[in-house]
């Protein structure tokens, strides 16, 4: 059974379409969507509808901080341009779409896999997993062997041995990595809708339960169109240019 895991879609229709196509050709049978469906991009309504459709087909989804912000209104600490995007996004969504975002759970479990947007120790606190330190904190907070999360936009793989030694690894796209079950693993697939590691191609990961192997993928997509729509919508110009340079 192959599960495709997407995080931080950020209203980027072009990227999401490309990733879904790619994952289908790679044999994805299950879908997990790790939150932040909106914010930054110009197609929030389309992306939310796409997520709802996947949920109807059995996908598991969790809430991201941007989804929550759009539902509740911008948080006080948000930067002005982020706040502007939140208000704009809210105006693009109808009541049903907003209700859907409001109904998202903070975490989901499937067997020994945990899905959460930011971290396992306080999912609603939205703290980032920026290093081994936070990865270990998150892995200690769950009994699950495998944690999948988003929030950080760069693909990364952490592991924790039973002796308490943690390792981190920047994956090579397209290579299947075995994740043996006597360690704990924390997987950050990377952002589908707004990659930030210098490579503009959309990120996602595929977990194959038959042999506990994980493959990180990068999918090139039409970021020019996605960027043009951001400019047309009068959203901050920086949000368009960063899609092109991947930062």
């Amino acid at each position, binding site marked *: 059974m192959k599960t495709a895991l997407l995080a931080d879609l950020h209203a980027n229709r072009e990227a999401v379409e490309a990733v879904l196509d790619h994952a289908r050709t790679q044999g994805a049978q299950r879908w997990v969507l790790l939150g932040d469906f909106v914010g930054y991009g110009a197609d929030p309504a389309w992306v939310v509808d796409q997520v709802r459709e996947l949920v109807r087909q059995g996908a598991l989804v969790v809430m991201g901080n941007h989804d929550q912000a759009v539902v509740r209104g911008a948080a006080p600490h948000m930067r002005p341009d982020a706040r502007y995007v939140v208000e704009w996004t809210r105006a693009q969504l109808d009541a049903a779409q907003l209700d859907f975002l409001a109904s998202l759970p903070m975490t989901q479990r499937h067997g020994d896999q945990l899905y959460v947007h930011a971290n396992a120790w306080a999912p609603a606190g939205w703290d980032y997993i920026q290093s081994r330190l936070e990865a270990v904190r998150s892995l200690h907070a769950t009994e699950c062997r495998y944690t999948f999360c988003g929030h950080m936009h760069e693909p990364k793989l952490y*592991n924790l041995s039973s002796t308490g030694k943690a390792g981190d690894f920047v994956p090579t796209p397209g290579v299947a990595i075995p994740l043996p079950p006597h360690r704990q693993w924390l997987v950050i697939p990377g952002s589908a809708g707004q990659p930030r590691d210098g490579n503009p191609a959309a990120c996602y990961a595929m977990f194959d339960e038959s042999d506990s192997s994980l493959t990180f993928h990068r999918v090139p997509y039409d970021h020019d169109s996605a960027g043009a729509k951001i400019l047309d919508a009068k959203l901050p110009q920086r949000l368009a240019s960063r899609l092109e340079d991947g930062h």
Partner: protein
Amino acid sequence: MDPKLYSNSLGYSGAGGQNAGSPLAPGMVIDRFELVEKLHVGGMAHLWKVVEVNHQGDSRLQLIMKVPRIKGGEDPATIVGFEVEQMIMPMLSGRHVPKFIAKGDFTRQPYIVMERIEGVSLRPRLDEAPLAIDEVIEIGSRVATALHELHRQHLVHLDVKPSNIMFRADGTAVLVDFGLSRHDHLPDLLDEEFTLPMGTGPYMSPEQVQFVRNDPRSDLFALGVMLYHFTTGERPFGQPESVRGLRRRLYVDPVPPRTLRPDCPPWLQEVILHCLEVKPERRYQTAAQLALDLQDPSQVALTRRAEKLQRSGAIKTFKRWFFALGAEPGQERAQVTEQLDRSPIIMAAVDIDHATTELLQQLRETVRRIVLTEPGARLACISVMKIARIGMDDLVDADGRSRHVKQLVALKHWARPISKALSLEEGRLTFHVLEAPDVAAAIIEFAQRNHADHIVMGARGASTLRRLLGSVSSQVVAQSDCTVTVVRAAGPTEDSRPAAVAAAAASAGRPADATVDRP
């Protein structure tokens, strides 16, 4: 057995369930493998001969099962090393590793089933050292070839030593035991687990002593230690058992092999000491470059290393010790294959006798540009003397020798502007005159044997000649495994190009030269 250095301060409680139940015995079936007999009891693992129950595939393949020895669940070195091997072996392929068949994880019974390589390792030969010089060269060249292949697969072995090297019946070297290895595409589980350098004391490279685990040139250092030992009967750095003892190799250089063995040729000492340089950037840059030297000793550029008859004096050693104190290498995360990419072997095939002056110039200019872009590149210039299939004896006579020398002189003359312009040092430029009835086949074979990354050659100029004789370049383009660039002298385009080259030129969008890239 060589001592392995590990931290052993860590308890490992996480491998619960391993070796649970009855101990392994002949006749037992684990997953689909039946245990036949115990072949070997090692410090870290047991080896069992196994057969696959209800086997459908190739039954000629003999199988062994490697089972880690876990002492009371308190042995992180064994467990993590075995875990690493379980992750890495399925990623490797080819004749220089045992074929991976299956694995079992630590939640039940940990094992790896793999192809059994018949025979014994190189370990017993150590006791017979010093070996004949020819055998040392043969071992070095075969092992370097195997290492290059592994490095190309993104692997650094990090525990190259005689007991981890075996040979197939046809002489192909096979590396075994990947428990300390590092693969670029996999998390390095060992990197974080231990606080002492990992490796086998006598063979560990200086950078391994300093916790660097991603440099393929570490394996060349270990191979240098082996070749030193096989040549002289002595270990170049003894058998240290403390980190302090290991660090001595950062500043104390080994006794030159010729001091211990007077009949060691200077070129072999050059090769061995070149492998044993403290700084990786002063060693051979790839195993392929080492193999090239071992296969053609006449082309080894001799430096002061070849002439040394005693180790460096106290003052020099003290200086090195002083600088080694502070100089911990920076942890840049380069990939194994990047090192190979930076150090390609470029092969220029030059038709000295028949090519036009314009073509020779154009060829030289193209080669110069390619070599210029890669400061780590080596350039091998070759020329093929066509000989008849029969009557090969002609070549051993005086006339044959003089033709050979003439070609060599002409080849060196051709390359002179390149060597001057680039001030190529330390054997980065070599010359080879091959004798063969089939020019294209000789070029292809040389490229394969020496792991060339890129062949640059001229197209035959006159279309009449090409019609009569066929095109050498199109055969090389079609049949070699590496990138081939076919160079044409500027001039009017001809219609009668060989098809393969014309197609390549069209796809590359360049009318004058054509390049075919291969991974």
